[in-house]
């Protein structure tokens, strides 16, 4: 599903963020991306979502060569990917329902279909009944779950999460991780960047370990 072939990313000011990264994450697999801060975790995720372009090398998502994708393809690539961020990136002037519905609105779904899918998605993260609430009134954990509901509402092939548990206490973190496992069980490819080693060491998933922009292990990660 996600394949990197000798990918390099160099920033004009900061120098090399990623050097010669190669790995393959098979469809339906789940893996953690670890490393100290500044190791290149975020950069790697950005490349997958086309928030950044690789300086060298090739990367494929769902068989599509992203290094060759023209600008107008970017939205379509991002629609295959659900992204979850540490600080949620919610719209605070809209209700939970509207936030979760956004990907569907963008993709041009019909009204009834949107309502059905948003409720299903909120149900999955345990927030059904909070549809009409503004996100600002929710706790950090709940906001994160709204972000997850939004990421999965249009049934993406891939889920990317950047430090999804960064601001949460251990219990809430476990709940969130459990959610990701559930999505993975229905066939979504999941890649989670995290430095919460204590948490992920207790989970049976392979790790891609980055250090100073280089991948230390995990050339091929297939479905467990």
């Amino acid at each position, binding site marked *: 599903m996600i394949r990197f072939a000798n990918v390099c990313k160099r920033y004009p000011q900061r120098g090399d963020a990623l050097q010669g990264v190669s790995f393959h994450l098979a469809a339906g697999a789940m893996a953690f991306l670890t490393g100290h801060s500044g190791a290149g975790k975020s950069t790697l995720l950005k490349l997958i979502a086309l928030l950044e372009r690789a300086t060298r090398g090739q990367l494929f998502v769902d068989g599509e060569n992203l290094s060759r994708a023209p600008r107008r393809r970017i939205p379509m690539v991002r629609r295959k990917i659900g992204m979850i961020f540490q600080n949620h*990136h919610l719209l605070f002037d809209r209700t939970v329902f509207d936030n979760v519905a956004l990907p569907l609105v963008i993709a041009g779904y019909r009204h009834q279909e949107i309502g059905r899918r948003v409720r299903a998605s909120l149900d999955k993260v345990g927030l059904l009944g909070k549809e009409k609430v503004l996100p600002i009134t929710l706790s950090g954990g709940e906001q994160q779950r709204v972000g997850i509901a939004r990421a999965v509402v249009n049934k993406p092939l891939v889920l990317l999460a950047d430090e999804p548990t960064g601001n949460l206490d251990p219990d809430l973190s476990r709940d969130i991780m459990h959610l990701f496992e559930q999505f993975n069980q229905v066939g979504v490819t999941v890649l989670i960047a995290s430095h919460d080693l204590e948490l992920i060491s207790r989970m049976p998933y392979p790790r891609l370990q980055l250090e100073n922009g280089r991948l230390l292990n995990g050339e091929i990660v297939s479905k467990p």
Partner: protein
Amino acid sequence: MRFPRFLENYLARHAQVALSSLGRLYRAPLASLMTAAVLGIALALPTGLYVLTDNLQRLSTQWDGGANISLFLRDSVATEQAQQLQRKLQQWPQVDSVQLITPDQALAEFRELSGFGDVLDALQDNPLPAVIAIKPATAHAHADAAGALMQKLRDLPEVDIAQLDLQWVKRFHAIVDIVRRSIWVLAALLGLAVLLIVGNTIRLEIQGRHTEIEITKLIGATDGFIRRPFLYSGFWYGLSGAVLALLLVELAFFQLHGPVRQLAGLYQSAFSLQTLSFAETVALLGAGATLGLLGAGLAVGRHLAAIEPDHLG
């Protein structure tokens, strides 16, 4: 009529965005109204001048349409000869009607209208010449043709003086024409102002919704999707400005309507002010909406590309 599914979806989405943009303006009524007012005034100025000169032009065509040629006959021409001439002129194709005013009739009319009856009694004989008033046929009523006709009439042996009082109408025409042309310059400048005002308003709106744009791009919104609400905002701004301009112009001319009627009445004229016709109203609203759309398009083109989500987490 049944639309294909994708077209129906497309139209529904556009209608939805159009309405939500309108709703956004409605939710900030004061700011929206201020912008619309500025646009309205900018559009009302050239529109008002246009209506004004349109009326002046109509008024002056009424004048030269009623251009009568007066032939003052020589003293030596007797009444029978004058009547003969009248009959002869009546046959001319350029002539609509001919009226003979004998010296006696002229004197009676003058006595009645001028109020100088007593003075006239003191005169020994009638100083007024016979006059033939000619109304040119419609095809010859405008200034140039009437002038040519007058030249021809002047050469008649019975005619002492032929008079066509159209010179000032011509000058008036020329002045109105100049004013009309300068209106287009003014309209172009103020149109540009509308473009810039809408552009700037939309630019501020884009800045205000920076995060939202970033997030929607992150989720996979196309440029078109992000552009659409701003373009509709510009459209609504332009349209509401034009509606306001229309109201301002109608109100201003409504104020003038009564006094102008009264003045026209004093000149025995049925002239009354006319404001914008249906086609002109549609043109004004269309111009406003188009300028709004263009202004928004400029702002969107310049500022949206600059917003790219480049940070995660």
